[in-house]
Structure formats: structure tokens, C-alpha cells
């Protein structure tokens, strides 16, 4: 059982996760942001590995990715920045990104490095379950890395159950038909979708992401799921931050208070 699985076995509700793009706002902020997020009590953290063509992302993460790449972020550097992170951080860590940089880095080497550093899982929106099962799963399993899959309001019940069956860690519940990005509130339609999923009694915990931006959205999502993920709204805050540590603490306080 890795840190992520342990977390879910111990805590079942109101989980809060934060996504940020590695290399943004500045190239070497990665460890600072992770430590500040742990200090402010976030339950798990998604480290965005930037990609040139992030098709599942909205404008905010597109821009943070573009700036991170311009700053010089790349896979080897990210691993180097966080190689000693487990000396100070025990919060579960995931890498979220796209499959191409991982193919170029080498799948086996990627998983091996994640394992060595203490990365617990990955979220790769453009690696669908079918391809994963056929060509990737055995390598992820070998190194104990959870691969987290998305479900959406347009996923059929049958498919959601199939994804649940083949997942370990949690299920990433995309809040609405759309890319990542801060949106105002959680609509009734979304709430009923969350309820529908809750009634399926999936074996994996469900965490709502995409479009959750504030305390209200987080709380609504937590009514029918085990927790929620905030990304774009956090990145927007970072872009105007003059003191990362205190601004991050304030942001998280604003969500959890």
C-alpha cells in the first residue's frame, strides 16, 4: 500500500488536493510549493509536468505550462528538484501530465524514478484505460505506481464500472463536460451527476476535479464525493503571489475554514 492508498484507507471525506504546474511561476518553486501545501494541510498534491500541447487543459493551465516550459522545466529537472522531497514531505504526491514526455523519458525509467523518489501515482488524461491495460499497466504495477483515471458526465455507467474495476487509488471525477479551468459554482446538474456516481458504490474513492475553484465548490463536491481537487484557481493565485508560503497558507485556509 503506498501513501495514497493509505490516505484513502484512513480518511474518507473532505479530502482536498491541489494541482500546480512544476516550473511555474518560477523554475525552482517546485519544492517550496509542495512544502507549503503540506504545511497548510492539503491531503494530497498533483505536480503538473508541463506539455506543449495540453488538450485537456483550459487557458490557465495552458499558460502556466507554456511559461513553465519557457522557464526551462523538463522531466529530468523536475525529478532532480524533488529527489529529496521525501526527507521533508510525507503528503501523497502524484504527477499529472501527458503521455508523450513520459514515452520520451522512457516508461520504465519514469516509473522507476517515481518509485525511488516516492511519487505515489500519475494522472495522464491522454492515456485511456484500454491502451493502459494493453501496454502500460504491467510497468506501472511493477513499481507500485497508481494510475488514476478520469470519468466524466458523459461516461456510461457500464464504462464507469469498468474503469473502477481496473483502478487503484482513486477515481478522478471530471465535474462537467469541459477542460480544466476555474468555473463559478457547482450547478444542480453537476450535483445530480455526483449523486448518480455516489449511488454506484464504486470500490475506489471518488475525487471531483476540473472547475472546482473555491470553498463553496469544494464543499458541494464533498457532499457526494470523497473530496475535491483545485487547480486553475490555485494557479491564478500563484500568478499574483509575492510571498508563496503565506499566500498558499491563506488560499488553503480560505477553502478549508
Amino acid at each position: 500500500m503506498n501513501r495514497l492508498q493509505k490516505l484513502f484507507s484512513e480518511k474518507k471525506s473532505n479530502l482536498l488536493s491541489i494541482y500546480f504546474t512544476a516550473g511555474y511561476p518560477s523554475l525552482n518553486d517546485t519544492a517550496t510549493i509542495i512544502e507549503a501545501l503540506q504545511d497548510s494541510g492539503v491531503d494530497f498534491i498533483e505536480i503538473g509536468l508541463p506539455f506543449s500541447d495540453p488538450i485537456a487543459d483550459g487557458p490557465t493551465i495552458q499558460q502556466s505550462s507554456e511559461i513553465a516550459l519557457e522557464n526551462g522545466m523538463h522531466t529530468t529537472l523536475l525529478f532532480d528538484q524533488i529527489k529529496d522531497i521525501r526527507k521533508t514531505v510525507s503528503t501523497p504526491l502524484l504527477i499529472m501530465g501527458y503521455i508523450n514526455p513520459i514515452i520520451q523519458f522512457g516508461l520504465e525509467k519514469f516509473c522507476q524514478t517515481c518509485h525511488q523518489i516516492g511519487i505515489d501515482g500519475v494522472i495522464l488524461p491522454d492515456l485511456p484505460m484500454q491502451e493502459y491495460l494493453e501496454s502500460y499497466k504491467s510497468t506501472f504495477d511493477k513499481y507500485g505506481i497508481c494510475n488514476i483515471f478520469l470519468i466524466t458526465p458523459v461516461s456510461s455507467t457500464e464504462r464507469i464500472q469498468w474503469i473502477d474495476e481496473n483502478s487503484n487509488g482513486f477515481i478522478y471525477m471530471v465535474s462537467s463536460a469541459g477542460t480544466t479551468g476555474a468555473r463559478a459554482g457547482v450547478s444542480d446538474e453537476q450535483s445530480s451527476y455526483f449523486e448518480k456516481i455516489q449511488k454506484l458504490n464504486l470500490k475506489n474513492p471518488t475525487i471531483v476535479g476540473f472547475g472546482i475553484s473555491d470553498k463553496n465548490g469544494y464543499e458541494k463536491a464533498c457532499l457526494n464525493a470523497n473530496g475535491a481537487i483545485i487547480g486553475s484557481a490555485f494557479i491564478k493565485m500563484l500568478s499574483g503571489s509575492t510571498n508563496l508560503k503565506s499566500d498558499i497558507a491563506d488560499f488553503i485556509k480560505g477553502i478549508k475554514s
Partner: protein
Amino acid sequence: MTQYSVDERGYYGSFGGAYIPEMLYPNVEELRQKYLEIINDPSFKEELDQLLKDYVGRPTPLFLAQRLSAHYKTNIYLKREDLNHTGAHKINNTLGQIILAKRLGKTRIIAETGAGQHGVATATACALMGMQCIVYMGEIDIKRQAPNVYRMKLMGAEVRPATCGSKTLKDATNEAMRDWISNPVDTHYIIGSVVGPHPFPDMVARFQSVISEEMKWQLKEKTGNEDPTHIIACVGGGSNAAGAFYHYLNKPKVKLVAAEAAGQGISTGHSAATTFLGKTGVLHGSKTLLMQTDDGQITEPYSISAGLDYPGIGPIHAHLFETSRAQFIAITDQQALDAAVMLSRMEGIIPALETAHAVAALDYLELQESDVVVINLSGRGDKDLQTFINSGII
């Protein structure tokens, strides 16, 4: 025997697949389940064939280019896709896909475009069918290709700029995919080449296969043999080439020649020659050869012809390259310009700059007097007039 058509998993050899976010799964899966049934339906064929004949002007002529043939001491035929309505092969695909979209009950069409040729062909099909049309185009391309932007607008399409990344074709494709993610129910994405997740590459190849279907009977009529010795086509994403090769893929005696854009030269850093510079990776829903950094970031290609300015090639072509079924030749900007002048002056046909790459490939083939060469003349050069003027060749 090596198989060149797509397999059940959506792969050509080790290339292809459907690497899509879950949000796109229902759309792509619906398409996968239904596309063959729909396009093989006799009433679909009838509707498409009628439009190809009366609206597009098919069959396009197969023309024996006598002066060009004499120059190369062989027999060169030109498959005149440039004579299609809208001036290129792109319309074969957009009409096929729009009829399919209607049958899937879709009411809103989106597309990506680089040079604007596919955008214009999509806007045309949408105007014809009375469908809403939104075309994504890189902000830089909107400036570079202003006349095509106005053509699309004139036909009622909305042109939306892609303002992120390199602001060109690949970013327009990203935006179109994001739109489809956000509009999963009413929208069909008319992709412009044999790229994207399965079943798009196969579907687009089938719609373009009318090119080689006609070539077969036209050659038979003209030479007594439906098989040429060579077929040459340019490759951006690879749709005109896929269509020109389609019915000859399993005839190893027919040499397939693909002309890629070397830009300023393969090793200048300003090139779009994917098979020479690319590595296997995943972009826009399929695994294929892609130009990218060692770190897996997709790089911006360069070619004088905007239609060849794509950092990848369709998975079918990656497979044809890997199996050596097709020969890939990289043609520089200058060689393409020279070939465009040659064809203009020898045959009175001004080719698109994309197409000129295919013409330039003649110089690399050791042609015999008895050979029968077909060049797929994918488009006409009117759109490139300003580039010809700027290059100083006129």
C-alpha cells in the same frame, strides 16, 4: 504479408490507436462503432457520389503531361485534384464527414485549419448543408492566410483564433479538441487529414480513396494497365497521399513516393520533414512519428507551404515509412518553388506549393522510358501567389 490497412485496435503496425481524454471517449467511440456501417450504406454512397459529381466536379481528369514527360524521358500523368471545387482534395473528406455528421444527428461542426484550405473546404460543406461551422486557426496563420479567412467568413463560418502555444496548426488542432471536449453532444469534429484518434485516420483515408479508385480505371483506359509504376504525393498529415496510395497499398510493384517538406533543409532547424527528424510519440490522439525535443515537447515545424507545416504525419504513413512500403523524400522550399515554376511553364498548371513538393520528387527517381508515373496534383496554386511573388521567382 504486411498489412497496410488499419487493424481492429485502430493501429497501423505499431502506430495509431486512440489516445484521447475520457471526455472524448463517447464521441470517438460512437464514431468507431458506426462509421463503417454509415459510409457503406448504399444511400450514403449515393448521396456522397452525387455531390462529388455535381458539386465537386468529379471524376477529376487524369492528364498526360507530355512536355513534362519528355523532359524526364518517361510517362507522367497528373491526377487533377486541383480542379475540385475549392481547389484541392480537402473537399472529398469534408463532404464525406458532413454527411456522416448529419446521420449521427450532429448540428454543429468544428474544424482546425493551418493554411485555411481545410477550413475553406469545411466552411463550404457547412454552407451547402446549412450547418453551423466554427473553424479554429492559429493567430499567426490568420494573419498569414488572410484571404482564406475571408473566404470562410463569406460562407458563414466563424473563425476562432488559437492564441496559445505556437499559434499555428497544431494549436488550432488543440483548440478544436478542447471545443469537442466541451461540446460532446451536438458537435462533430471534421478533422482535416489522416491524423487524430482512430477511426479518423481510416475514415479520412476512405473518403480520399476516391482518388486512387478513379486512377485505376483512368489508367486502364489510357494505358491498358490499371497499375502505374510510381505514385507520388506530398505529405503534410498525409490525406491526399493516403487517398492516392489507397487502392495500390497491396500491390508491391507500384512504388509509392511521399514528398515531405524539408523547409530550408533537413538539418537547418527549419524543417517539417517528419520521417527524417521525428520520433515515435503521442499527439492529437494517435501514436505516430512526431517532431519533438528529447524531452517530448512537440516542436514547431517550418515549411514555405503552410499545408505541410505539421509536426507529425498520419499513423498510416509512419507505418508505410517503417515498413519501407513507401519511399520518403524531403524537398526543400527552393526545390518546391522551382518545381512550381517548371510545372507552370511546361504544362500551364500552377500547383499549390504543397503539391509542388510532389512534383520536385521526380528529380530523385530513376525513371525508365517505359515507366508510368502518377503525380497526385493535390491543389492549385492561386492561394500561393503572394508567396511566389515574395520569393522572387516570377
